[in-house]
């Protein structure tokens, strides 16, 4: 057993003179992580397939409001819906996520064909009425985005974890 580093636990001395190989220890940790906690193979594969999601022509609607971050919690209220607002130029999309599904509105009010994306291979179509309102009875199961076709334009909301 080697005790010669015990007095260094306080860690106040300048680094570089440690009497052991920090690089080696870090490398051993790296190997341990590769064995005990590697990137799950199926996740890596999903990331590879995510290339299909790149779309240079669509406009990205950025998240401008997220109730998780921006709202003041109401005392005692549990299971409040997640409120999200996305914006791309003058187009705004308000979305409410509940256990029952999605509800939302495109502003300014307009018809739109919308797809609820759940990943590179999952898209569920919904239609926004004249007022721009839409509902989807399937709550997002994981990350989701909305792709809107309105007029001649395609707008995609930023990917978000529901």
């Amino acid at each position: 057993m080697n005790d010669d580093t015990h007095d260094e636990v306080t860690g106040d001395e300048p680094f570089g003179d440690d009497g052991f190989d920090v690089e080696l220890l870090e490398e051993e940790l790296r190997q341990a992580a590769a064995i005990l906690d590697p990137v799950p193979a199926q996740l890596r594969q999903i990331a590879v397939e995510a290339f299909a999601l790149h779309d240079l022509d669509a406009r990205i609607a950025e998240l401008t409001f997220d109730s998780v971050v921006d709202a003041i919690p109401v005392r005692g209220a549990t299971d409040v819906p997640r409120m999200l607002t996305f914006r791309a130029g003058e187009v705004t999309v308000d979305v409410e996520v509940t256990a029952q599904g999605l509800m939302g509105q495109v502003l300014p009010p307009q018809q739109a064909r919308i797809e609820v994306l759940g990943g590179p291979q999952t898209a569920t179509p919904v239609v926004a009425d004249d007022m721009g309102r839409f509902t989807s009875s399937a709550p997002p199961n994981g990350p989701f985005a909305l792709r809107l076709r309105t007029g001649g334009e395609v707008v995609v909301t930023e990917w978000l974890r529901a």
Partner: protein
Amino acid sequence: MRVGTIPSAAYDDLPYTRGGAVDRADVGALVQSAVDGDAAAWKALVEGLSPLVWSVVRAHRLNDADAHEVYQTVWFRFAQHLGRIREPEKAGSWLASTARHECLKVLKSLRRLTVTSDPQLLDRVSEDRTPEQSLLDSEEAAAETERIRWMWQEFEELGERCRQLLRVLMASPPPSYQEVSAALGIAVGSIGPLRQRCLRRLRARLDARGAL
């Protein structure tokens, strides 16, 4: 939230002091090729930077379900923003920063911060065998396995700050300090000294245990 921008570009003049199998200098070129439609370049980015994203997620101690969702969200968003990322050569920092923000959001939404120290992790064996895992298949590897588990246990019991930093640093290939900074929201200049200190603490714990 503005995920498209890295919090600070004040460290631009610092060299990348670390780097591994994926030469970080190539990242910008890979991003550009992917923008041009090269799926192989995208795959190379995933191979090279997935462990960094995963490490950031794990450093924040999310449970498995949340960790998986954040990891996916980060890559979906990266694909979505491809071609719009201002500094393609810093894609690693972009990913690390995005992962951090999503993790913090999950932790905030949980409110009651249930710490998931995932004790099963030590017994988990991935079905997808990496070269390192194949090593464990050999008979003489039992002692090696034991040693690695000890090390992991001691690592898990470090203070939160050290545990977090080391979990990010042990991504493979090793992340640059700029990426670590983006992953944890700490200044580049403090990473080196903190790293030394944390590794010393781990070393001391292992010595005390008589391991290694």
